[in-house]
């Protein structure tokens, strides 16, 4: 009897696991159908070094398949443009170019969002172990960096949302610092 329950549980567990995998595919498919996105963001950084969080805000623009632009307007203007493997940072009159493959520690901060928006499961799983929970109406993705070099800085990324909208992106760093980004549909034109 116990064994039957046990087997039943296992079957049930397997079914949920399969369901989760199916849900992840379905979610990513849903997200991948959006080729363009433009949202406002507010980001709070909680750092041990600081007695209160630093808050920044701006816009996030996504264009399929691999362009992600983060325009920070407050507290000081900065432009991050991710295209392919290249991250360009413009601040003041200066422009830096970072090669993601040479600077993998930056990956969790940008690739997590881009690959999710693109619905690119392969890209997502190249960098992270992905766990889906919830349902399509209210879902959460837990991303854990695979490579030790990345995991040394970032322990996990949590993304939640509903349907094809992202709500929050939380990046937890190994040293306990974390940032929480809240996304809202772009209010402007």
């Amino acid at each position, binding site marked *: 009897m116990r064994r039957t329950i046990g087997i039943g549980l296992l079957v049930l567990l397997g079914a949920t696991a399969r369901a989760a995998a199916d849900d992840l595919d379905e979610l990513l498919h849903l997200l991948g159908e959006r080729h363009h996105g433009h949202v406002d963001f507010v980001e709070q950084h909680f750092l041990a*070094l600081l007695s*209160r969080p630093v808050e*920044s805000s701006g816009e996030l623009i996504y264009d399929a398949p691999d362009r992600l632009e983060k325009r920070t307007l407050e507290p000081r203007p900065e432009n991050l443009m991710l295209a392919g493997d290249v991250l360009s940072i413009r601040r003041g009159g200066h422009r830096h*170019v970072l090669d993601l*493959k*040479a600077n993998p520690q930056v990956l969790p*901060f940008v690739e997590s969002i881009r690959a999710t928006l693109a619905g690119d499961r392969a890209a997502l799983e190249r960098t992270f172990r992905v766990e889906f929970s919830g349902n399509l109406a209210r879902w959460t993705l837990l991303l854990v960096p695979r490579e030790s070099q990345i995991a040394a800085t970032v322990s996990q990324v949590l993304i939640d949302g509903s349907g094809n909208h992202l709500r929050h992106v939380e990046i937890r760093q190994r040293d306990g610092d974390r940032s929480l980004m809240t996304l809202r549909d772009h209010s402007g034109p």
Partner: protein
Amino acid sequence: MNARRARVIAAWLTCIALAAVVVGRTRYVTDLSAFLPAKPTPMQRLLVDQLREGPASRVILIALERGDATIRARISVAMARRLRLDREFSGIENGEPVSAELDREFLFRHRYLLSETITPQRFSAAGLKGAIEETIAGLASPEGLMLKSLVPRDPTGEMLQIIDQMSRIAQPLTRDGHWVSADGERTLLVAQTAAAGSDTDAQELALDAIRRAFTAASGETAAAVPESRQVQMHLSGPAVFAVAARATIQHAAVRLSIASSVLIAALLLVVYRSPRALILGLLPVATGAMAGIAAVALGFGAVHGLTLGFGITLIGESVDYSIYFFTQSAVRTPSSAAPHSWQRQRWPIVRLGMLASVCGFASLLPSAFPGLAQLGAYSIGGLLAAAAVTRFVLPELMPCDIAIRDVTPWGLRLEHWVNPVRRLSVAALWGIALAIAGIAALVLYQQRDTLWNRELSSLSPIPLSEQRYDAKLRSDLGQPTALDLVVISGPDLESVLRGAERAARALEPLIDEKVIGGFDSPASYLPSLATQEARRDSLPERPILRENLAQATAGLAIRGEQLAPFLDDVESARRGGLITPQDLRSTSLAAGFDALILHQRDRWNALLPLHAAEAAAPDIDRARVRQALAGAGSIGAQLLDLKNESDALYISYLHEAIRLSLAGLASIVVLLWVALRTPARAARVLAPLMLAVLCVAASLSLCGRQLTILHLVGMLLIVAVGSNYALFFDAPRRENDHDAALTLASLSIANLSTVIGFGLLSFSRVPVLEDLGMTVAPGALLALLFAAALTPRRPAGTSRRAQNSD
């Protein structure tokens, strides 16, 4: 007789032996020294030093193409590892973060001496507050987060400031930690040779080392990944060009020399029908070539490859002498039956023609352009030797039983063709000649603005496609493509670094105004001691800094006590020493610094290459830059525009060459006037030559060819070769029909050999040789035709054919 023969031959052999010793000991160069003026202005000196020894001249660009990017990256790493062990190279960069850690550590340790924001105000309470607020705001960006751990030691963000300063210097695109081209199709490496760019031998060794490293590296990689065999390497840069140019010129010179020698030998064999005569006939040529090189070696200390290339030209000239000798003297005609009749009757004509050529080439000797002066010395030495051997040695060596074809029948047939022209009246002939000259002059006048090519690159043996490829690699590597350079000269390193800093302040506004895109400066790597000292003096004593910091952090998200490491670092910087050039040695920054500092004898030069505002519009508004530099005060800053300066140098050579050629022409006129005694005869001799030169120049111009300095040399050669024709035609007043026919035949054979020699040259891919061939081959032919046509008619009764037709 035998004693005389022995003496002559002994003297000749001695001369050859001496010349051989000189030739064997000579240094052969192919660098740009041929273009270095003998007495340069300081600007020209700087220009040529830049081209010869400047950092740009030592750079070899390496591109790996084809195959997979990751395989290319592996080969790049393996190559760099090998080459870094090679003493031929002072630096190998491929974007690998080999020294990045060391560099970062160095920059961070010296941040209070390197950061441009360091002033006393920076450490006041207000200054600290502003800087720390900025740093806290920066923590919101991924870049700020990367520097998060540095905040307790560097709360004012000097490290970020230094990174910004350094990012002014363009960096190539990096993929997988390796430099790649903008399109990602090429993996790039940059090698800097230890030897100067002008040391072509060393550059060739360096190129070989790179090729070996590539073969070994791709072999290594191929063991694991067979596809790596697909990867190909392409090299570019001044060293590659110099080595290729030398090889091209040498190969072309050798190949064409062999080809024209074979063809001319075949021609002469057909003409002489005597292998012995053929071999004897080449003696003046060989002696002339040897004497020419020896003359240059003795006069200039080194022979330029370019000069050697002209060895061919001497074949065309000096072989004529022996052709005249054999065809005109070996045949026992009634009038020349007596021994030594050639020496008596024809040698004076050949000698006068030779002297006219020597006059022409002597005009090149005073040229400030050593390439041209060498050519003059080479030709004079060669012609004198070839003529002397023809006159004195050949008659002694010629066996009595030698049988050479009598070419008189050919001459008679040729006369038959020329006669209809000669039947025209003198007035008609000269009328036609003047008309042709007028048309040619008109064409030249109409094209006067575009007649001459004013770019030094017109002489470059490097194909345009290679030059474009080089420019592409340079733009991929973020190297300045615009060849504009601000040069600050001074007596010591400190003074030029101070000058560079002042120039940088003057240039800074031009970046915002989009006049320039940016600039590199040695002071970005190593500020002057004065600047470093001023920055160190800005650092307050510990108690004051602690007090200011407490005030600054009041109300901020960061607490003063967290910044204790900052107080320690500032204190140690305050007590620490200044950065010296030796301190840079341990980092990769040294290579960047060395590339921008040129030390010669007692002069130091700081170089600030300017980047164009837009890659699409590489031209920089130089007036604005000069104006800005003038505003910076007397720091000895000059804007050196490499392309225009080198073109200006070339134009000055061209103008000088035109002047000298005209002087040479004048001296030929005087010589002929004196030798022929009447101006009318001199004019008759010169007219066909001038006509040929005008026609060739006009035709080249009509064909869209812009004339270069080598075309000018070619025109000089037309006059040199053609003067013999005109003189022979001028002389035969006392000749009979038979002799006249023999003269015409021998001149035609000589002409044919010249046309073969130079005609082959015009197929060369080396522009300098091609220009020469295209000028001389048609020019010599025209000179002969015009000289034959304009020959004065002999008095009636001496020409049977003329009588018959009358």
